[in-house]
């Protein structure tokens, strides 16, 4: 507990530092009065950036490096837009592992824990948080043994090979079943890419923009009958509504801003 607490503090400090642009750091020095407004605006932007880049609560820097590398293969950045790394999925996974999901809240945790059949589902004595901790450590150990480097320091091609090895069961890990760990990582990556941005992933609604999902719904009573007409709206998140960035109707449904006026064509 103490060890991870200290690590969390260091991580948090590092994350904050990383998020504040060099220009913002320089502003702690006295500035000419005439620049006050500009300086204030810059300061606000830096503070906003720091708030968006949440400090890591659970993951160590080693684990952050591992996940940044891994999720960028699972959902890569490409011509279609940002990937999982750019969308903040590592931050999402960190939040999840720190919270109820990571500690198996609302799940049955009593033993004994025989491995069981695939039909019987999750039977690990480990929580998801512990599975990540063990799975990342084991995978890095495998990479060091095989390639002489941890996962995040491997080439893209080597990383791809390792992930395929975990997925296909060709690589065996020591403390957790490789496919069990991989499937959890893949599921959480997809969740982080598509969940409401309030959870730290899906940054700039990258996941929703990719698929054409509008997030918080509007009233579709009329549109449901416009057969074959794509409904293209700027996605709305929960925070957009609670922070009054998005307009709502009398029942609290989003009033979507349409992306183009050719929606009817």
């Amino acid at each position: 507990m103490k060890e991870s607490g200290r690590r969390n503090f260091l991580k948090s400090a590092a994350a904050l530092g990383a998020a504040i642009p060099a220009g913002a750091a320089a502003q702690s020095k006295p500035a000419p009065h005439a620049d006050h407004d500009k300086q204030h605006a810059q300061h606000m932007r830096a503070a906003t950036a720091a708030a968006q880049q949440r400090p890591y609560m659970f993951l160590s820097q080693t684990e952050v490096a591992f996940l940044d590398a891994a999720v960028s293969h699972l959902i890569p950045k490409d011509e279609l837009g940002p990937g999982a790394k750019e969308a903040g999925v590592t931050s999402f996974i960190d939040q999840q592992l720190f919270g109820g999901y990571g500690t198996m809240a609302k799940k049955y945790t009593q033993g004994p824990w025989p491995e069981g059949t695939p039909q019987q589902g999750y039977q690990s004595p480990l929580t998801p948080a512990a599975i990540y901790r063990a799975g990342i450590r084991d995978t890095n150990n495998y990479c060091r043994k095989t390639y002489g480097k941890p996962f995040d320091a491997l080439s893209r091609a080597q990383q791809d090979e390792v992930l395929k090895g975990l997925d296909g069961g060709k690589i065996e890990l020591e403390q957790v079943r490789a496919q069990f760990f991989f499937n959890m990582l893949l599921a959480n990556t997809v969740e982080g890419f598509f969940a409401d941005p309030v959870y730290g992933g899906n940054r700039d609604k990258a996941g929703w923009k990719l698929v054409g999902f509008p997030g918080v719904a509007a009233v579709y009573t009329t549109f449901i009958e416009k057969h074959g007409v794509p409904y293209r709206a700027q996605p709305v998140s929960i925070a957009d509504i609670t922070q009054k960035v998005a307009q709502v109707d009398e029942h609290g449904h989003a009033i979507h801003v349409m992306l183009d006026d050719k929606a009817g064509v």
Partner: protein
Amino acid sequence: MATKLKPVDVVTIGVGLTGTILAKELADTGLKVVGIERGRWRDTDPDFAMPGVHDELRYVRDKELMQDLSKETITFRNAMSETALPMRQLGSFLPGEGVGGAAVHWGGLTWRFLPWDFETKSKTLARYGAKHVAEDCTLQDWGVTYEELEPHFNRFEYLYGVSGKAGNLNGKIIPGGNPFEGARSKEYPNPPLKTAYSSALFAKAAQSMGYKPFPVPTAANSRAYKNEYGATIQACVYCGYCQFFACEMGAKASPQTAVLPALMKSPNFELRTLCNVVKINLDSERKRAVSVTYVDSRGREFEQPAELVLLTSYVLNNARLMLLSGIGRPYDPVANTGTVGRNYAYQTPSSVTLFFEDRNFNSFMGAGGLGLAIDEFNGDNFDHSGLGFIGGGFMQAGSNGARPIEVRPVPQGTPRWGSEWKKAVGKYFNRNFSITIQGACQSYRANYLDLDPTYRDAYGLPLLRMTFDRHENETKMSAWLTNKAAEIAKAIGPAKMNVSPRTGKYTIVPYQSTHNTGGAVMGTDPQTSAVNKYLQSWDVPNVFVVGASAFPQNGGYNPTGTVGALTFQALEAIKTKYSKRPGALV
């Protein structure tokens, strides 16, 4: 030690779909009713308010509205030869927790089982002979007919404001409705919902093949509707957050929207939330329930004496509390004796997903039950000679609200991750729809519920153990039905399609349907049923066990409409017969 409370007339164990109706109606007759609910109080305002209720992670992955397994779960195995292990996280099915139960997060589809469904055994034997049924199939009649239940179906549909179109009104076939349904005495209280694009394509293809599509009956109301209790259910706005979610509009009928507004005003009703019933206490001869014992949220134990105990929790807990309380004889699959836990069954869902290059379906829109269906391949609506199975299912296409964590189908052969996966998800999220089939599931000797020898709940009581697998009848049926759906899909003409019949062993992992049935089945013979045709325990007549736990086997529809009818069946018996002469009604 338990604190003994002042006696009341009626206790309901669970305050969901069945418990609220029974409590309301019995409180209206002047009886003092206490509803005991293990979960918390929940209502449209503030619990289901916008925008927080449109949060897929919270409601779909983290199962906000569903059972807290850290306190109680079940154990599961495919066969008696295996060791059952706990269902550590929810997957295959999703029981609710809290006031309203699973009827808060349900999909809204409100069917009447076919007349054939209630007499499956006798009708099958008469038409096909005993050889047509597997030897270990414990098929049986319900002890009640569709005709007897018809007025009760009406009551429930009018209470919940179901939207639909009659297909058989007093024996007259009505165009646009389901020509296969049992004769109904009244039209649905509300007209059908609007038609989604996918439904229109499906219906056109189905019609061209000679089938008769009709609107799926659903309790996502098509217009604002005031029911007999004076409660107003609002009009659905097709927002797409329906099944697994609670409705922010109060447009999906539920205990919250249809019954609780009136029930909570009744001076004869008292609700106790966060109170978990651990036992129904019997007298020394085990012929009469004298009280229920429950533990409240402060860890205090209470004994609530009552004249009448209504077991109105979810299917699985109905069977478990009977077993924990020693009501009826536990089922023994080896000796084939006993009744409690017998005939556990499920559903055999399958689908065909159609992918298009240039058609957009706005898949995120919709409502629970928004769809057009055909019933040509349900029940015994078609000749099963030579097919090697009995039963069937309705099939439908519609728009129920796709959200990308849960619903993002890609064509078969697409990698599970990486750039190719990303392209496919991006392309097809709004360019696909599915024809889904609600396949029936028969009951078998080896599929049953009992108490687990190893694992316990938070109170130290044994968990319920489920032993279940799909049998040849169901896999053959699923292959055949899914092939029929694929023929319709081909006529629609997608670029690609995934044909996914239900195959292999049953697994507890992926979501399939919250249509668990049986375990306390109804019937005419106390040797093969736990409750009589009025849902009354054969062994302890002042206990009624209400819910899909009474289904002897499961039909090819969602169960809720029939659960509603059985609730009124039990209610009428209690009001008109039991109240005059308490005791065994059969």
